[in-house]
């Protein structure tokens, strides 16, 4: 009995070896090819956090140079930008819904997340517009723009041709990808941020010692 079991086990092992040999060969071949490519410096470079950080820094500078001062401050402080809708279309028609009848609407623009249309007066969420700007040249293996470039692309497309962007996007009801509670919280944060900003602007500048008089031009 034991001899029979041992013989069966040997046969099974031999068969497994036969079956797995081509698979092992393929794996070894891939590993050898990858090692050779790395040695030659050819192929897609790996993820480099330093490069991505530098790219994001450049993208932030570009965004700052293109959007309005309060929009930049909004992005810096809150992580998103509100863009008013219906500004780029000369027809006077609302792009997101025909039944708005002129009620002002706006979009919340997040990096690499859907654009969310909502009514600022009531906070009612209208739609999510899932849109991407994939760069298929994939210089470093990824088609994804830096965060701030993604926001700027959405901002420019909404400002320049809202209808075209919305037409290209996949429309969903709110809550498909972004938690509506998070959106409501962001709308509330935006309202508070705007009030505080307004108060700061209304407040007279603080007098610092020695700064009361006019600056000495010869200093």
């Amino acid at each position, binding site marked *: 009995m034991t001899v029979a079991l041992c013989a069966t086990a040997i046969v099974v092992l031999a068969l497994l070896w036969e079956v797995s040999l081509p698979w092992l060969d393929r794996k070894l071949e891939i590993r050898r090819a990858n090692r050779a490519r790395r040695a030659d410096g050819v192929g897609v470079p790996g993820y*480099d956090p330093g*490069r*991505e950080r*530098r*790219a*994001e*820094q*450049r*993208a932030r*500078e*570009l965004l700052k*140079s*293109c*959007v*309005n001062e309060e*929009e930049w401050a909004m992005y810096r402080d809150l992580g998103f930008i509100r863009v008013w809708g219906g500004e780029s279309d000369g027809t006077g028609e609302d792009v997101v819904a025909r039944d708005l009848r002129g009620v002002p609407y706006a979009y919340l623009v997040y990096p690499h997340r*859907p654009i969310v249309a909502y009514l600022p007066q009531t906070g009612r969420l209208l739609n999510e517009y*899932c*849109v*991407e*700007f*994939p*760069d*298929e*040249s*994939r*210089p*470093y293996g*990824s*088609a*994804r*723009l*830096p965060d701030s*470039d993604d926001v*700027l*692309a959405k*901002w*420019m*497309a909404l*400002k*320049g*041709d809202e209808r*075209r*962007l919305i037409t*290209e*996007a*996949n429309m969903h009801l709110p809550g498909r*990808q972004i938690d509506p509670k998070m959106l409501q919280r962001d709308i509330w944060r935006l309202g508070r941020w705007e009030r505080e900003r307004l108060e700061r602007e209304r407040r007279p500048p603080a007098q610092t010692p020695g700064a009361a008089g006019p600056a000495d031009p010869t200093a």
Partner: protein
Amino acid sequence: MKFLRMRPGYGEQLIAEGDVEVADDQERLVEEFRRQLDQGMWAAVPVISESGRREAEMVRAFEDIPRMTDRVIFFPRAAGGAR
């Protein structure tokens, strides 16, 4: 006028630069503009409105670029995201 292109891993890249008043430069810019659009890029021009607000205009032809603009930004065309 500068042509900038958004690219993954780079931020923006300067892809062409020239003076539109100089014929050779303009020809080169027109060629580059067409090449970018052929590659599926969208082109936008940051502008300042009469009220002083910063806005953007999408341009589909070189002739549509305002003469006074100093930069054109190219970015990949929009595609519908997660279904």
